[in-house]
């Protein structure tokens, strides 16, 4: 159920990269993470809660994230997520392969336009 019909779905793995990259800068709780991605992407990207929370659990299970009890800005109890070393390594690998892919796609698009 896309909230905005003009938005297109993310490709597989994209959500995980964004989560890892965001948390590398600053460990956050779930809501802050959603807000952060929205703000940084200038509202171009909106993360659905329906995907975010299962994705966070999947990444916990893979060992890319760890979780600790913390408090939110309003002082309520919440859970703070931070990336593990394994998570950061995964991020590096994925970024490298994304860059390669983007480079490839860009070249093809440029050649087709020429």
């Amino acid at each position, binding site marked *: 159920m896309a909230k905005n019909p003009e938005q297109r779905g993310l490709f597989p793995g994209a959500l995980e990269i964004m989560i890892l990259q965001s948390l590398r800068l600053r460990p956050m709780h779930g809501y802050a993470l959603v807000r952060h991605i929205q703000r940084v992407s200038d509202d171009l990207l909106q993360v659905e*809660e329906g995907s975010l929370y299962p994705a966070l659990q999947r990444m916990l299970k893979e060992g890319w994230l760890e979780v600790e009890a913390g408090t*939110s800005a309003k002082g309520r109890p*919440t*859970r703070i997520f931070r990336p593990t070393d394994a998570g950061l390594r995964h991020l590096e690998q994925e970024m490298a392969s994304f860059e390669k892919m983007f480079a490839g796609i860009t070249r093809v698009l440029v050649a087709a336009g020429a």
Partner: protein
Amino acid sequence: MSLFTRFFLRNRRYDDISVSIREHIDERIDELMEDGRSREEAERIARRDFGNVTLIQERSREVWQWQRLESLLVDLKHVCRRLRRSPAFAVTVVLTLAIGIGANTAVFSVLNSVLLRPLPYPDPQQLVSLRLTAPGAPGLAEFRDELRMSPSMYLTFAAHNRSFQTMGVWLPGTAGITGLAKPEQVNTALITDGVLQTLGVPAIAGQLLTAADQDPRGAQRVMLSYGYWQRRFGGDPNIVGRIINVDSQPRQIAGVMPRGFKIVNYDFDLLVPLAFDPVKEILAGFAYHGIARLRPDITISQADSDAARLINVWMHSWTNGPHTDPFFYKTWKITPALQPLKQAVVGSIGNLLWVVMGTIGVVMLIACTNVANLLMVRADARQQELAVRSALGAGRWRIARELLVESLTLGLLGGAVGVAIAYAGLRLLTAIGPENLPRLSEISLDGRSVAFTLILSLLSGLLFGSLPLLRYVPSLRGAQLGAMRTASLSRERQRGRNLLVVAQVAMALVLLISAVLMIRTFIAMRNVDPGFSAPASLQVMRISIPETLVRDPQTVLRTQNSIQDELAAIPGISSAGFAASVPMSGAEPNWDMIFIEGKKYTSEELPMRLFNYVSPGYFHTAGTRMIAGRDFAWTDIYGLRPVGILSENLARELWGSPQAAIGKYFREFPSMPWHEVVGVVQDVRENGISQVSPATVYWPSLMGNLYGPGPLDARRTVYFAMRTNRAGTQALISEIQQAVWSVNSNLAVASISTMQDIYGESMARTSFTLVMLAIAGTMALALGILGIYGVISYAVSQRRREIGIRMALGAKKSALAWMFVRSALVLTGLGVAVGLGAAAALMRLMRALLFGVSPLDPVTFIAVPIALAAAAVLASYLPARRTAAVDPVEALRAE
């Protein structure tokens, strides 16, 4: 990671998830309120934006779950909740299944223990029974289905065979044990060397008997069974080496056999070595059971041809004495027919067990169809719910899975209760202990039985679960919310149920016909004159007088005569007598051919006659009628007069009529004086009610010795019969014991029972089959009638509208009721037609169990369908009557 920490961690994960989500929504609400919205509005928007909290929570949790298993558990939880909500349905189904599965498990356990499980000896597949047949010895088949081995055969086989690792012969017997407490008769197994070695079970104390014990002048020790060791010696660990008096002869105890050890199928107290003296043995003496362990590379047919060769060697090596023809036995055509020992143990019971298993299996099928019917009705009721769920996006597989989980749960619940029922049933069976069920002590619920139950439960769950499934799940495609009165749809559903009813009726008919045939068999057997009268007032017991106790045969007879007189003097005993064998007692029969005076014998094919040896007064006591002539007198016996009494069928065969036989002469062989026929008695069912009465010669109980040393030959083991109204009472038994001891205090009384008990045992197989089939038939009938009742009453409730219309148009109430009864009769008729065909085919298999009634007995084949049809009319009339209560206005207004 242990299961516990895993669960602990998981619960923490679940907490994390819900805390995160709660905070997420709260923070969003705060933000919205900061933008100036009211709290209510903010909450609504926050929740709407977030989406389905439960679903997201569940998806997040799923990451940590064994998904399949847990969603199955959830299904299971739903099923249990639903079943708890309709307890009557659940209890009916579970009980129906439990009874069906329980009965099947019980019968399977018996079948498994008796037929399928290997014998409790090492490498049991190598064990064979040395069975011989003698098709050239006519009449033998009347009392034996085989020719047993003689001692000389054993000696030949043991020395010259090329097929056996070990072999031996054995014979059940009895012995008096004295010097311990009261004199006691125990069951002995007389064994040669090789019997224990063949069975291959080591002793638990001491050692096995060996070849040295076989020497007629050797040690001749004995071994104890575990049971006798416990019973008589309290399990004394120092028992080996002790001396006990066996038939007044001191013998050393060599060892003890382990618990449950039997010689083939025979439960003994004492193992006594046989000590054949090769110098004295002759060809004859066909009394011994032979067993052998085949060499690993030898097949039964190879062993058979080896045995055929050995029989030839045997005839060349031995004689029956001077002036006899050692090749006389060629005319008997002695043929080896070795069989696996298991087959010898199980005997003819296998056939019966398969019949019972099949019967119970059919009952299970009927029970399953009934449950399927119930489930269909239930699924009908849930049709709307299922359609709604399907419209809301539940996949067909999802719904099918839930229905299947439900029926499998019911099946497993039924199986669990069924195991309890089977366990109780088996305890009961072993407690009753039917005499002629082999391997009774081995019967138990083992892993295989439990696996059988599990498979049966799952299969039945699948069977009765898939029938409603096949009907309903495809129709879920076009969601028919509210389209519930489509006539064609319900008619199609009705057709499925009708088919089930036809199948039920057919199966019930088969079972009922077999039950009725067994009842008629039972009645026919009850009407047979067994050759004795009023068995309930006939007390029987056995007394053996061993040679070591009383040497002189004449004294043996005097002792027996005194016992007979003492017994007859007991108050309440009107007469007494004794014989070497009483009917159906299982005593080893003696038999041979006889020659009659004045007849030239050219053909050597003379039939075998059963021999019995009786005292004066025995026939009168047993109630065996004298047809002609007179009974023996004591003067005949003490005077060694050459007289004999014949059975009626033998007298008719030889001289045409009982009267004509009186005064005629016969003998067993040329060196015997001619014996005069002084009496003819009625035929006796010696081997059981359903067996033909063998042609029998009754000799005096003391005769000139024709076989062994010494001038006289007395019967040392005889059965005393007493006619008394006090038969079977404890007081009488102790008075009998006192009377016997007053004659000789070293004599023990054995096998005390009434003739009624012996008679009952010989009927046991028939009564057992009868009871099983009657139970199965009754269950089938009840289930079938329930099936008809259910279908008709459901049809009536489904067709209320139609009935209303018909009534409004002027149909008579009775005509409407008849319409339903008629449809039930059509179903019953179809079922009967199918069932009759199946019964006609199947009853042939039961031929061996029937007596005095044809497997296609017309009375049964006509009466049972009529009775079934009558029951169907009744079962359908009750619900059909309800059509009368339909108010046309209401029925039409209802929708």
